[in-house]
């Protein structure tokens, strides 16, 4: 929280007794956090060990940075790293642009009923798991699927989208945006409601068109939220979406679609190499931590709002 600059802005925090109650109310959450977040952090030492489950953390051999050396010596670690970054960045950008556009368009529509219905419909796919949606997507993009049937009408040859390295990332990013844009637009719709209607009134009196109003009022008002959301998501940049990719990829598109998480899954879980899996996880966390710190300070500098 930014420090309040003037006295009259100081929020009401209650007297000492009330404060204690508030802190106590935080306690269950903090305990959960400790159990599920801080305690498992200890397991990160596995990354520096040759971990054998039967011997446990205390009995396993200490190997220093050997696991990290192994990871970086894999011929495909660079490829996997780039795939992750490209897919993630694509998602990050599209998941910012599309929901903003959608919420602005929806906001311009009159009629509460229509607005609400539409919002609910696009919101729905968010609640379906990728295990289910993967079947839908596979069928949509199969040779006899509707997408290829549509292309066929225009005389375009059928494409095996999910087995084609030119298309795979596009499909991954596109379907992710399709699934999440309804959910992501909720926060922008809320931000739109917070804009002072007086601004629009004043603008229309000055003769600004609807389009001009969007450009000069709506977009600037949304900008802090967009930047904030992007900064928050930047911490997730190395998570390109395990369940989505895992359910849609196949060896032909490893070249463009194999991401860190699917790779770690195959090494760590399928081959039982816990230490290597833990090493990659730790590596990811460190990168994410650095990214979120820098994104936060960047957001603070440019828009004045920040997460912490």
């Amino acid at each position, binding site marked *: 929280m930014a420090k309040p600059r003037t006295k009259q802005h100081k929020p009401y925090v209650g007297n000492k007794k009330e404060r204690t109650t508030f802190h106590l109310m935080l306690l269950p959450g903090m305990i959960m956090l400790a159990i599920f977040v801080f305690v498992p952090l200890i397991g990160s030492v596995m990354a520096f060990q040759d971990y*054998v*489950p*039967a*011997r446990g953390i205390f*009995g396993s051999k200490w190997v220093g940075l050997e696991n990290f050396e*192994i990871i970086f010596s*894999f*011929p*495909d670690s660079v490829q996997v790293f780039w795939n992750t970054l490209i897919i993630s960045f694509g998602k990050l950008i599209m998941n910012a642009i599309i929901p903003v556009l959608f919420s602005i368009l929806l906001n311009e529509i009159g009629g509460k009923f229509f607005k609400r219905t539409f919002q609910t419909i696009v919101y729905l796919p968010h609640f379906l798991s990728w295990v289910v949606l993967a079947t839908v997507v*596979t069928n949509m993009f*199969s*040779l006899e699927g509707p997408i290829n049937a549509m292309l066929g009408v225009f005389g375009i040859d059928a494409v*095996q989208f*999910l*087995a084609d390295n030119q298309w795979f990332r596009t499909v991954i990013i596109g379907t992710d945006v399709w699934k999440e844009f309804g959910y992501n637009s909720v926060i922008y719709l809320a931000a739109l409601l917070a804009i002072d209607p007086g601004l629009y009134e004043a603008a229309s009196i000055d003769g600004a068109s609807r389009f001009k109003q969007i450009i000069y009022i709506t977009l600037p008002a949304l900008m802090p939220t967009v930047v904030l959301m992007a900064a928050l998501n930047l911490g997730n940049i190395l998570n390109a979406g395990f369940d989505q990719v895992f359910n849609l990829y*196949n*060896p*032909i598109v*490893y*070249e463009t679609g*194999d991401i860190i998480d699917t*790779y770690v899954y*195959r*090494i760590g879980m*399928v*081959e*039982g*190499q816990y230490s*290597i899996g833990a090493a990659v996880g730790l590596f990811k966390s460190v990168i994410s931590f650095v990214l979120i710190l820098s994104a936060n300070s960047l957001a603070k500098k440019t828009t004045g709002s920040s997460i912490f």
Partner: protein
Amino acid sequence: MKKKWMKVTSLVAAAAMTVISMTACNNEKSFMDGMSDEEKTAWETAMNDPYGKYPELVTYTTGYNLTNQGSDVLAGTPYENDTPENNAYTRYLKEVLNVQNENAFEAISGPDYNQKVSTAIASGNIPDIMHVADYETLVDLVESDLIADLTDVYNNLACDTVKEAYASYGEENNPLNTVTFDGKIMAIPKTQLSDGQDFLWLRKDWLDKLGLEEPSTLEEMENVLKAFIEQDPDGNGQNDTIGLVVHSDVYGDYPNNTFAIDNVFTAMNAYPNIWVTDDSGKAVYGSVQPEMKEPLTLLSNWYKDGIIDKEFATRTTDDIVGLISTGKCGAFIGPWWAPFNQAQTSTYATDDAEWVNVSCPVGTDGKINAISTKSYAGFVVVRKDFEHPELAMKIVNVNSEYSKQDKSEAAAEVKENQTLAYFNWPLYCEVQPGNNAELMTQNVKAVMNGEKDVSELTTEEQSYYESVVRYQEAEAAGQKADAADYSQYTARIPAMTKMIEEPANFLVPSFFETTDSMGSRWASLEKMEMETILKIITGEQDISSFDSFVEQWNKSGGEKITEEVNEMIK
């Protein structure tokens, strides 16, 4: 809490007993010191007889394998108060051999049990007799010198059933080879039933409709598949059938991966995904051998011509089952038990499909080239210095032979518990001949031909026989049999008969296990392999890229792993 204390005290007691008995007898026979000659003879006779009953109760510590059924299955039966130290099996062993188990640990078979074994080994304090599930653990035990040499015990005491069962796997794949270290038998291997060879499963009704013969060579197979895509076998006037469905893994886990097409590779003497012995006697990885090029070229041509499913790389197993169930495809490669697959049962019920298994594609000698599965599925080991090492062999004898022929009441109790399936033999090791499934079919057929009486069948065989009868009755009445009966009949009678009458060549892989470097390198190598194989088949890469793949494979750890494998099988 109370229970826990009881466990602790019993453990302490067991440990104390072990210590006492160990100090009491420093050499092998000293527990007989102070006995009269008569008593000594009684003990010696018991110890040298495969089923000899000990003159006095012998207790041994062990690790008990439970099944994952959960103890509730015993509720309401006469056995609901049974415990892992007092149940039908332990009572039976006590009656036959006068032995009693004390459990150092009890766990459900699989990871739970294996972890207890690992912990016991790590502490250096293993039970007198126990079952271990994997080869690495056995090697670990031999290397840390914790287990006894069982060579004499095996030679003196193994019953005929056990000896014949091991021999049924052939000299090269004999389970005893695996447990022999420096010429010493260090464990009693539990057997793994052989799964036989894969067949080409075809819709006979389609073959008949198009006037085609059952194929056998690769060319004949190609012609049948071509006819299946071009001549509208389902008669709906549309060009919508698929030739051969292919598992997205293409090969591996022979023959358990239904829809995988290993047989196409093996017909051309390529053995992908396993370790084979090359001409110089060295173990090499099959997927990177030059023999792979020929089948890969053929498959890429088949892919181009649409003979194999164009979308196989993105299909899940469920997708494939869907294709077959809806009558879009009439050919796949699978094992003798493929009729249990929903792909077959549903087409039988709705489409009047008639499935047959064909020995195709065959190699140059007219037989299918198949790959042997592992012959062992675990090992019984005895703690070094345990005074009754012969006990392990005797229990295995009882498990595998004596109890099966015994018609006593105690044996009936054991049989009943086998269907309840909560407890197992305290030593989880039954030795069966590798071709047990074939033998069962022969017995069922003998009853069908009137050569045998139903009462001569085992309970398992009886249930198959009943299915067969129900299937035949339904068919004779012009009705569709129950799916389960259809599956039992088709798999166990016609399919199995073909397996018996048209034997395959079985190649025994030179190595089944994993090496140290495999753990960290294998995922990466496998990725490289699958990427290349799929890209070559789908035509995205030329066959010439196979050579650069092999080079890259060796450079990225494959060479090192090959060295390790050869080191391990020395």
